[in-house]
């Protein structure tokens, strides 16, 4: 897969949809193209978050540690982004991500991503849009649970 294909893939993500084409190409270039075999771990719960991964092909399992052992909570596949929250804050990974099929990813370094945000306001809007959509979604969920709790 060459750089231009990777740029196309990034473009399809809401996070990067509104970024300048040349900046996006630079982001792709400074990111590492990485492959994982099934069973290999991208990152562990509790690790410091230093990068996000864009899945170019393949699938991953997302799992969290519980006293009863790890529980699979979600899966992700082509054209999705994993661990993106780590790009925006200094937190730790909240889940473990494992490749479940031969996986091809683009590893986006946190510092490079932040530099790009500074240079490219249009992309910042894209990110804000994604975050606010999620927040709306979460608020709605919370309201639903709350009303369910109160009526109960």
């Amino acid at each position: 897969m060459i750089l231009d294909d990777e740029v196309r893939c990034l473009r399809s993500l809401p996070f990067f949809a509104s970024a300048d084409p040349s900046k996006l190409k630079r982001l792709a270039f400074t990111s590492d193209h990485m492959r994982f075999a099934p069973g290999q771990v991208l990152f562990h719960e509790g690790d410091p978050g230093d990068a996000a991964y864009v899945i170019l092909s393949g699938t991953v399992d997302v799992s969290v540690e519980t006293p009863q052992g790890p529980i699979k909570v979600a899966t992700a596949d082509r054209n999705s982004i994993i661990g993106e929250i780590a790009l925006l804050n200094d937190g730790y990974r909240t889940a473990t991500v494992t490749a479940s099929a031969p996986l091809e990813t683009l590893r986006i370094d946190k510092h490079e991503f932040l530099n790009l945000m500074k240079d490219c306001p249009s992309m910042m809007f894209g990110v804000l849009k994604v975050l606010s959509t999620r927040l709306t979604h979460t608020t709605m969920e919370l309201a639903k649970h709350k009303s369910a709790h109160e009526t109960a």
Partner: protein
Amino acid sequence: MEKSLSRYIWKHTWRQQIVILTIVAVSMIPYFLSLDLPKQIINGPIQGDGFGTPDSLQPFFEVGFDLPLIGHLNIYAGYPLDRLSMLMALSLEFLALVVINNGFKYVINTYKGRLGERLLRRIRFQLIDRVLRFPPSYFKRTKSSEVATMIKDEVEPLGGFAGDAFVAPAMLGGQVVAALAFILAQNFWLGMIAVGMAMLQLGIIPRMRRRLIRLGRQRQLTARRLAGRVGEMVEGITTIHAYDTSNYERADMAKRLGEIFAIRYDLYQWKFMVKFINNFLAQVTPFLFYSIGGYLTLKGSLDVGQLVAVINAYKELPSPLKDLIDWDQGRQDVQVKFEQVVEQFQSDGILPERIQSVFTDVPPPLPGPLTASRLTLNDDSGGRLAHEVSLEIGKGETVAFLDLNGSTAVAVAEAFGRAIWQTSGKVSLGDMDILDLPESTTGRRISYVSTETYFFDGSLRDNLLYGLKHAPLKPAVREGQRAARRRWEIKEAALAGNVDFDTEGEWISVAGQTTIADDEILREWMLSALDTVLLSEDIFDLGMRSVVDPQQRETIARFAIDARKTLRGELIELDLPQLVVPFEFDAYNSEATIAENLLFGALIGGDAAARTIISSAYFRSIVSEDGLAEQLFEMGRKIVATMVELFGDEQQNNPLLPEMLLLEDREVPEYVRIQKEVEGKRLSEANEEQRRVLFLTAFSYVESRFRFGVLTNEIRAKIVKARHRFYENLPPNLQALIARYNEAEYQSSATLLENIVFGKISRVYADSHSRILSLIKKLAMEQNLYDDLLTVGLDFQVGPGGKRLTILQRQKLNVARAIIRRGDYYTLNQPLPGLNPNLQAQLVKNVISFLRSHSNGCTIIWVLSNPRLSNHFERIVIFDHGEVRANGSHDDLMGAEDGVLNELIVR
């Protein structure tokens, strides 16, 4: 140390000083003979005195003295010679005297030089010896580079002076007295004038020079401080860069240099002023002779002959007088320097010599318990660290120290490790104060590790074994010239009051015995200690990255070659062959640069060799065939264009710029310019610079890294063909720069890892590097060679202060260095701060079980930064605000009502 330099010199060199005075006295005889000889030659054979007739003879080399009372004493009547023979004989005598005089000069100067150098060596050694015996507090106030400059530079002139310390005043003084006596004999009053003026000179000039001495002292101090600051600047260079304070440093340095300049300029002005007055005084005397002497002559009370004799005699006087005054200045100068240095090397708490005396036997096990009684510790400013702490730690206990508030645990541990000394109270072992015990006992039976790590420039092995080198046990075996050289070294060391321990000899003994530990034992110790602190993987990695001499380590080289095949087999078996792209002569390697693909060999001499080959006419001719050059030029153009698209708006080089753009230290705007210039041009139309840039860019392109999609299969095939052509007629001068990859041969210029992998590790596959390493480890273990590979890593050079290792590696090595020692007490003072909690727990467990099994019945005291780990210890002592707050077993403290331990753990 003696404060008066003259006394110091006399004390250590009086024998040599007497010898040299004697030699100087003896040398005067031929010297005076040679002064008289020219007159004899001219008056005798040349002018014909005593050779009245052609056949008259005169005695040659008549020896005799006119003695009072006895009369003329004739020792040798002389050999009769005629005029011509006499001329020749006297001339030959003159020649002989020239040789003898210069011979004496040579002997005297060498002797003085040697004496001075020995004294210098003695002073330096004494200063170093004192540095080694200073109390720890001294080093909190002293800059290391200041100490270095004192030992190296400031005492240097002392050596030059020592040879002249007594000889010069004796000789020069003698000459002055002789000349003055002669003048006095000619005419009393003129003589008194000369004496008066000489006294004036001797009185005034040294007085004026006092200011010079004061300035000299200032110069010495400012220069020393400059050295201290320069040292500080170098050590703190990362801080300077981090906070952009380089200009502040420049300002400070410029100010200091200005101060030094001002002092030196002042010094010069005054110095030449003194010189002026000195010269004036010296030359005003002839004026007095001419005027007063002339007046006396005119009046008839002095005859002309006497006046001329006096003036001639006086001519002889100024030079020894001036030299004498100069000598005196030199003496005062070095005296001041000496005092300044000696003052700095005085300290109240200096350790007595017996504490550090050499002890080659096995020290007896230390008695128990380790007791702190009413121990009070203060920091430098007088702040209280511990207040009357009393504590007893029995033999064989495993104790954790914890701090609730303050840093008392750390301080008490430091006192146990003798890193700080108490203000009052004491630390004792059984009934002995630990500060009174010789270091040969405490330094061997007690191991202390703190957060601070210090490593000496050298190999990892040297540093790991450092804590075992206590006393010279056996000198190294030498033969022939080296043995003679060693005997000479020992003799000289004794003459300069130095020690003559053999650094190349054996220093390490088997624990608890006097037998010397051999390499096999040492290796086992090192590897087990490294394993305990979880450092083996790192060492293995370091070993893999190092260049190994295949002749010296034959088994490893053979293993590397065999492992090429077995590793590939393993990878295929694991279904991971894609992790390594092997070097194959007939295939393009997509993980390597185009240049690497063209050259296909290990470079001997690194990048410089690559540059030489690439710019050679032979290489150019290879590339220009087949139309490859044009295609590479086009590729370069496309890559530069993409790079400009990506980074063209940057005015400065982005740290993420690929290495290729930085090849020649060019800035991004230059690439923008070149890209515009070459637009639409073909290779034949481009100039040298444009070609160079485009080719170099193309050469450093790696498809898998850059993913620009510019490398077609056609170009790949052409590159492989060019590679074949390159090796067909490789000229000998290029052969010396590159070794073609050969599956069956060890590549001595490549690292061990490169040799084993024999290809490129793919950068696309996650964890490929560590997977390969663990596979190699597995292979090595199967062949019982893992330990050998680890020892390669032990040769890694750690750099000054161990700076080539990471902080974590340094901390682990610090612990390893302590536990490799067999002793009775181990104090670990927060040795691994900031380590992740899981690893920390693992390490604490490992170290405790290692010490339990290796050092029977030893006591372990561990100051923990993480209270959760306290469950690994038998007893826990919790300090709070300088006092002991709780003391008991883990279970007791957890169950205690006040719950201090619980509070610590939860917080």
